[in-house]
């Protein structure tokens, strides 16, 4: 493999992979401690998709996210403090504690938000792309969706609109092979989900979603072609969750051998390997990154813990008469 990647670039990728890993791992702990409530859908095992795609985006670009949205938020450069505050329901959070994990958004970076409705953000992303073009901007919108999300009719509708209007949309299907417990092969007769694109006149491709460089390269090509007016495109990134659907799902329906298979190509493991083998980083350097991330994470948790509770009085005043 020729190596067109700089050490700095590979370091950046790995730092993000590891940040997501650390963030989710810590969130699960916080959940078990009762500091996070509601639903928590960890992104563990899928880190390379958010990181690879977001590395291919520029500052002017948009993304729409899913119910499993922490990874997209982090990969798009969100502040861990405000994320942690949000997920623990604090006023200092991105959404003032009103949104939580399933609604985390960072509009300042074009992250239009996670979504509690599977498929809910798909059409919204197409709208962002249309809007950008109308405003003369060079933006692309990455629409993250899932093997479940493509089953919702708005996937076909939105893909069709984006194609009919030649919009710069990159649909990213994170095929982790399950919608909760339903295997994708039971959800559809054609489990190669990218194949749906052709029927709408759209180019698509299935890639290894655990391989951050493969994700990055594919996304970079499609983003470039989107900017050249050739969009939309579809990426189906094959991947696998580390564990169950959410923090309380034991995932007993996931066969051990499959878990094992994907653990061997864990996105963080691969990312570390790229950094060392292609970037020439030393084990110490890797450890330093991880320590750095850990510290940022500790700091974020501390920030969230100390951050004041949102008050009911403020809330009532804010919602006022009519919301």
């Amino acid at each position, binding site marked *: 493999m020729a190596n067109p990647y700089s050490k700095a670039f590979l370091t950046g990728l790995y730092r993000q992979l590891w940040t997501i890993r650390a963030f989710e791992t810590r969130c699960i702990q916080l959940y078990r401690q009762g500091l996070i409530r509601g639903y928590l859908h960890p992104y563990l095992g899928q880190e390379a998709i958010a990181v690879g795609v977001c590395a291919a985006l520029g500052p002017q670009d948009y993304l729409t996210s899913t119910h499993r949205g922490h990874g997209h938020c982090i990969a798009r450069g969100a502040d861990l403090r405000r994320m942690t505050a949000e997920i623990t329901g604090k006023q200092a959070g*991105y*959404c003032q504690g*009103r949104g939580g994990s399933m609604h985390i958004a960072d509009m300042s970076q074009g992250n239009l938000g996670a979504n509690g409705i599977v498929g809910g953000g798909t059409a919204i*992303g197409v709208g962002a792309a249309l809007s950008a073009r109308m405003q003369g901007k060079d933006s692309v919108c990455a629409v993250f969706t899932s093997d479940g999300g493509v089953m919702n009719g708005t996937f076909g509708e939105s893909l069709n609109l984006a194609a009919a209007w030649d919009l710069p949309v990159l649909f990213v299907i994170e095929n982790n092979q399950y919608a909760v417990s339903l295997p994708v092969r039971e959800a559809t007769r054609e489990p190669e989900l990218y194949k749906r694109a052709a029927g709408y006149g759209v180019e698509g491709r299935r890639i290894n979603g655990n391989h951050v460089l493969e994700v990055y390269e594919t996304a970079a090509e499609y983003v470039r072609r989107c900017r050249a007016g050739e969009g939309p495109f579809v990426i189906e990134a094959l991947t696998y969750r580390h564990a169950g659907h959410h923090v309380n799902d034991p995932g007993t329906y996931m066969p051990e051998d499959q878990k094992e298979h994907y653990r061997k190509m864990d996105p963080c493991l691969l990312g570390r390997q790229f950094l060392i083998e292609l970037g020439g980083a030393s084990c110490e350097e890797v450890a330093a990154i991880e320590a750095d991330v850990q510290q940022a994470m500790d700091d974020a948790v501390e920030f969230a813990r100390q951050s004041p509770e949102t008050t009911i009085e403020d809330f009532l005043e804010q919602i006022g008469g009519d919301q």
Partner: protein
Amino acid sequence: MSATPPHDLRARHSSHRGRVQYRTALNEALAEEMRRDPKVFVLGEGIGERGGSYKVTQGLRAEFGAGRVIDTPLAEASFTGVGIGAALTGMRPVVEILFIDFTMLVMDQIVNQAAKVRFMTGNQARVPLVLRTQGGAGNGLAAQHSQSLEALFYHIPGLKVVMPSTPADAKGLLKASIRDDSPVIFIEHKLLYLTEGPVPAVEDYMIPLGKGDIKRTGRDVTLIAWSNMVPRSLAAADKLAAEGIEAEVVDPRTLVPLDEELILASVRKTEHVVIVQEAVRRGGVASDLASIIQAKAFDYLDGPIEIVAGLNTPIPFNLALESACVPQEADIIRAVRRVLGRNACL
């Protein structure tokens, strides 16, 4: 007589250009806003060259081009979502859903996305989207093209609901809706498009959302009505006047936000209330208005509030049955007589 606030008086007092059709007034509102603000655009089915099923968008494609007057395929949920995405990123889309019946296809996008994004993101974003649609019975279009569904939107926090009854209101409210930062469900009525009325010929004629209007003053009974029930109530009021009953016709114009004070002031004056609603009786907006009035003006009422509403049934195709299902002039007159204790006249 009008309850329009001071800053609109100029408009009221200015010379009118004769009479304008409701659909023309809407068309003017769209054209003016699109001229004023390049961020305003329209999308929907058959709104381009064809000018819309009710001709509200006629001429817009010629003036503003296909880039801002976008014909969509039959994919309501997604093109509404496209509107939301555009609104979140700096545009001011006006999405048209041909019949309010078809808004059932976009409920997720409206209820779970548009209405909630601002709240869920802790005020990071606004959704300045207008969803224009059209409802009501009266043309023999049967159960899937004749519903009055404002109550469904009225119940969802985060949405505004506007239902103009005259050309002037249509224009002034549509312009205000387009400039509003919240998602607005703007509901027209299929029987009103060809009605005519004066429209102030002033620049930027606007009616603030949340301001109702007294469409007729009267001392004996308050008739609360909106959309196509306003002209019908006015016609009933004219007949009642011949019997010596002076009805006050209050048109809230916007159901959310609601001009409660205007309604309550009228109720306190007349002490008798009839609410006229085209939508089916059960769970309609009229019930909510009644619940507010009885809570806030209980001591002024000397009898129950009457609701004249559509029957609890889907709308039948047959024209005679159709008109039996929605309030007619005679139903309003009978209800007024009833609340005034003139049962002898029934």
